[in-house]
């Protein structure tokens, strides 16, 4: 049967020449305006219609804020807008600051979602050599970025600890001539940690991050040992507590110096979200980063067993976020990592330069990944795709390709074009564009297309979902109490090294 009819549409009156550039969306019964500079403003529907019609003029209570934020043309200070925009994008042209180093692919765990494509412990051929490690340092310090962060990953990176020790020492020596700020961080499962290694890491200010997926029954289910059903929870807990105790004994501020932890959200995690947060709080961890599964590595084979789709993840995320906010209202100092990234963009004049949530993406221009064999990738995700048998994102080899060549590589340019929100369908007009970032390699893994179709990409649902949740809560924040909490989440205090020996060989 065929039905037909008409829809009556009343177009709003529009005096476009009275307006500044903005994007808009409807959130929490209000109209949200956002600006390239990250400024935003809520209007009632009635005031929005007045704005469009050019009737929101001097004398209207919203007018001064709308002028100051660049939403109204009359009185707009274009130079100030340019300065704010420059500050937001100041990382453009700085070059890669994050240098991911795969010291080995060997690992003694068989995590159900392993993104890294680990190998067995006897595969010493997947260890990075000292010669390659030296080339990594030489290359990384060629980056124009004044800040260099070496991030050691694997496999389990401590299995090849000599390389880490060498890179920390050699980069320190080399940096005497470069005068950059150089940091080292180790992402470890803690299973091969010893007190000797631990003391060396502490003495050399190597930051520590481990995987902690939640209480024992969750963590051990997600992260068993190779060839066993036993997990690593007890070891992780032991070493978190050992390091945190040692930081205090060294006189370090535990708010700044402590083991950070990452969790990956499987089906098991979703069922136990409150226990996971309580565990992090009990360990004094100040930042819980609720991460969905990524479509790389072994997870592509185990998704049916452990995976969850994005609507399920976002339902979990909303419950967890509200619980974390409630804990903050009770005086507990814990933040959610994704929210903190978005809030820094929304509530401060700066951008955290988080390489995966920026426009364009940081692959190759903010981040470089070095495989154990000396091959260079624009990001660890590109390296992960290579480990799955597809070398498409390899940029070249250490010793043959300079960092400048890497930044200008056609593959890096392609990824930049595919993640420049101003040129992407839907993103270019989306209210979330000033805060968002797309992941071309996620798109590639899902549809063999760097660009993807935005409504079909889980990352779009995740990023827009998170930003919407935050704006909904800010819209309902009548007494400013949530704003004060969120402002605290955007503050990053610098770590200061306590006096003492620089090395402990």
């Amino acid at each position: 049967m065929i039905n037909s009819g008409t829809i009556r549409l009343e177009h709003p009156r529009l005096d476009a020449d009275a307006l500044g550039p903005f994007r808009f969306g409807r959130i929490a019964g209000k109209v949200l305006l956002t600006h390239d500079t990250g400024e935003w403003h809520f209007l009632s529907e009635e005031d929005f219609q007045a704005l469009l019609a050019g009737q929101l003029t001097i004398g209207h209570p919203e007018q001064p804020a709308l002028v100051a934020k660049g939403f109204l043309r009359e009185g707009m200070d274009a130079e100030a807008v340019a300065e704010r925009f420059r500050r937001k994008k100041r990382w453009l042209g700085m070059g890669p600051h994050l240098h991911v180093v795969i010291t080995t692919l060997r690992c003694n765990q068989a995590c159900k979602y392993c993104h890294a494509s680990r190998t067995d412990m006897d595969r010493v051929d997947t260890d990075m050599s000292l010669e390659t490690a030296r080339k990594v340092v030489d290359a990384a310090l060629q980056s124009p970025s004044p800040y260099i962060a070496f991030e050691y990953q694997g496999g389990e990176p401590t299995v090849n600890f000599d390389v880490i020790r060498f890179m920390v020492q050699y980069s320190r020596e080399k940096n005497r001539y470069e005068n950059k700020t150089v940091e080292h961080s180790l992402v470890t499962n803690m299973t091969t940690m010893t007190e000797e290694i631990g003391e060396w890491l502490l003495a050399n200010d190597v930051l520590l991050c481990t995987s902690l997926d939640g209480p024992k029954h969750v963590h051990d289910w997600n992260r068993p040992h190779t060839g066993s059903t036993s997990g690593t929870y007890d070891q992780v807990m032991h070493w978190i507590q050992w390091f945190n105790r040692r930081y205090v004994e060294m006189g370090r501020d535990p708010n700044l110096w402590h083991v950070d932890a990452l969790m990956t959200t499987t089906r098991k995690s979703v069922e136990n979200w409150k226990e996971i947060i309580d565990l992090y709080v009990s360990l004094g961890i100040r930042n819980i980063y609720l991460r969905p599964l990524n479509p790389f590595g072994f997870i592509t084979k185990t998704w049916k067993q452990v995976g969850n789709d994005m609507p399920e993840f976002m339902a979990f995320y909303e419950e967890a976020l509200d619980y974390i906010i409630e804990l903050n209202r009770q005086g507990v100092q814990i933040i959610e990592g994704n929210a903190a990234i978005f809030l820094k963009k929304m509530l401060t004049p700066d951008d955290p330069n988080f390489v995966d949530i920026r426009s364009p993406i940081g692959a190759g221009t903010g981040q470089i990944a070095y495989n154990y064999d000396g091959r260079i990738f624009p990001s660890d995700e590109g390296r992960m795709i290579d480990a799955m048998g597809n070398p498409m994102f390899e940029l070249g080899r250490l010793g043959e390709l300079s960092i400048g060549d890497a930044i200008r590589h056609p593959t890096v340019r392609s990824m930049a074009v595919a993640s420049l929100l101003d040129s992407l369908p839907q993103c270019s007009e989306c209210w979330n564009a000033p805060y968002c970032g797309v992941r071309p390699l996620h798109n590639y893994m899902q549809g063999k297309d760097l660009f993807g179709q935005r409504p079909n990409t889980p990352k779009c649902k995740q990023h827009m979902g998170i930003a919407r949740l935050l704006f909904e809560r800010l819209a309902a924040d009548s007494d400013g109490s949530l704003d004060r909490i969120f402002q605290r989440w955007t503050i990053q205090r610098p770590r200061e090294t306590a006096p003492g020996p620089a090395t402990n060989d």
Partner: protein
Amino acid sequence: MSDSSPETEGALVDEIRWVEDGTRVALTLDESIYPMDAIYGAAYLFVDRCYVFLSREGDRMVEVRLKPKGESSSAALQALAGELANELLNQVLRVRIGDSTRKIREYYMARAFFSTSTQSSIDQLLAELDQEELAEDELEIQVPWETGGAGGG
């Protein structure tokens, strides 16, 4: 097809015709009211739920047909038509505001990225290095790595 008439000063009232057959719904749009960019933008938002077809129905007339990927019903199709119509309103605004403010955006972006105060950090670093006397280099760690002079470990 669309019937439009000016109502109040500057405002426009339009009637969009829809047709559905239980499996798909089609709306016919007047391009003089709904620019192609607005039609593309609105239709694109449905690609996760529907197969989207666009066809030229006549001079400046475009048909947008939505065929849901899953089960459907007349009520659901009529709701989709309403949703698309609402989104068309938003997209027309976005296109018109974007057109009107394009030069302002281009101006502040040019000022942000190309004015003298944005001299790249690379240039600054190079200038600093030129002025700097490097200390003794017994380990030869200043040798550019790509020349292969810093090998060995």
